[in-house]
């Protein structure tokens, strides 16, 4: 297990649907609603609780979207912090159990 890694998992209290190339995510506990762009969708879909965020950024974001790795990592951390604040993503420095979004 890499040291100082961040692990992210989708909360079980959310519902998610892909529509017209975008991911719609709703927190069913309070009905707050989010639309994720392509990059955010890639991170959200890769949030399995076992893959470190750094690896998700390197393998999924930098390769698919041709972005600067440092910039992509900083953007990903901001995005994860925001969705974690809305209880859409769970964040830990240990691997997590992830329940698939409905």
């Amino acid at each position, binding site marked *: 297990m890499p040291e100082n890694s961040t692990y992210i998992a989708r909360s079980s*209290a959310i*519902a998610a*649907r892909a*529509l*017209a190339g*975008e991911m*719609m995510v*709703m927190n*069913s*506990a309070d*009905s707050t*609603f989010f*639309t994720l762009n392509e990059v955010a969708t890639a991170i959200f879909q890769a949030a399995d609780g076992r893959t470190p965020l750094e690896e998700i950024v390197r393998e999924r974001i930098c390769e698919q979207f041709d972005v600067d790795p440092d910039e992509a990592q900083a953007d990903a951390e901001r995005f994860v912090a925001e969705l974690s604040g809305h209880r859409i993503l769970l964040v830990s420095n240990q691997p997590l159990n992830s329940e698939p979004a*409905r």
Partner: protein
Amino acid sequence: MTALRKSECVEIGAIPIALSTSDGGFLDLLRRRYAGFLSSSRPEFALEFDLSATYSVSDEDVRVCRDGDEWMLQRGDFRARWDPRAGRGTVRQDANPYSLDTVLRILHSLILAERGGFLLHAASAICDGQAFLFSGVSGAGKTTMTRLAPPDVTLLTDEISYLRPSAGGYAAFGTPFAGELARSGENCSAPVSALFFLDQGPENRIDELHSGEAVRRLMRNILFFAEDRILVEKLFATACDFVASVPIRRLTFYPDGRVWDDVRNFASNSLEVPEHA
């Protein structure tokens, strides 16, 4: 001693519900109120009314929550219990029509949520065999759109639209739930051609709505009261399906009859598959 109960079947959205009471005056009231929606169909569900309550009409928020296998519905002016498995419920209220309307709306919202349908804060009407929905906050123009409708347009409701999935899309049904127009809708249905979110402006125009914005607006205007995560998630899935299968636009309109020409033109020019699907 139990007084003799009489019942009347009220069928809204092709869902017949038997409403029973031992109070003859209340039975007359509901016959008048739902005159266009009385039915001889075999009821799918049953609600018994007990009018011994002395609750007063209230502005407090409705609460709908689970109590074991049953739903508890309550506001200051009524208390009700609904057993979805048995399809039966009881209501305690006094003999006022506003409580009766609210209980029926909640009950239909629960039944519809399980069946992939929903109640929407929207006016709706049938034009050239197609249903059009006009949604928005109070004052956006729902009742105005129905008042401006040409004589060949059939009013389904000026306040609460009733939507169910149907072959290839959704169907809108008339409801007796009236807004400012104070007129019941016609008891008929048609396939939904488009949903417009209303805004009033100096001229008529129809604009695209991004699918995320369409889902967000739709969710905001769906009438749903139950504190239940699973049903809320079902409703979210239904809203996404609706956005994927029905054209949804922003309609800015100047309040005169020409807006209906634009609605007709939109219908005749619209593609079969919505652009945001």
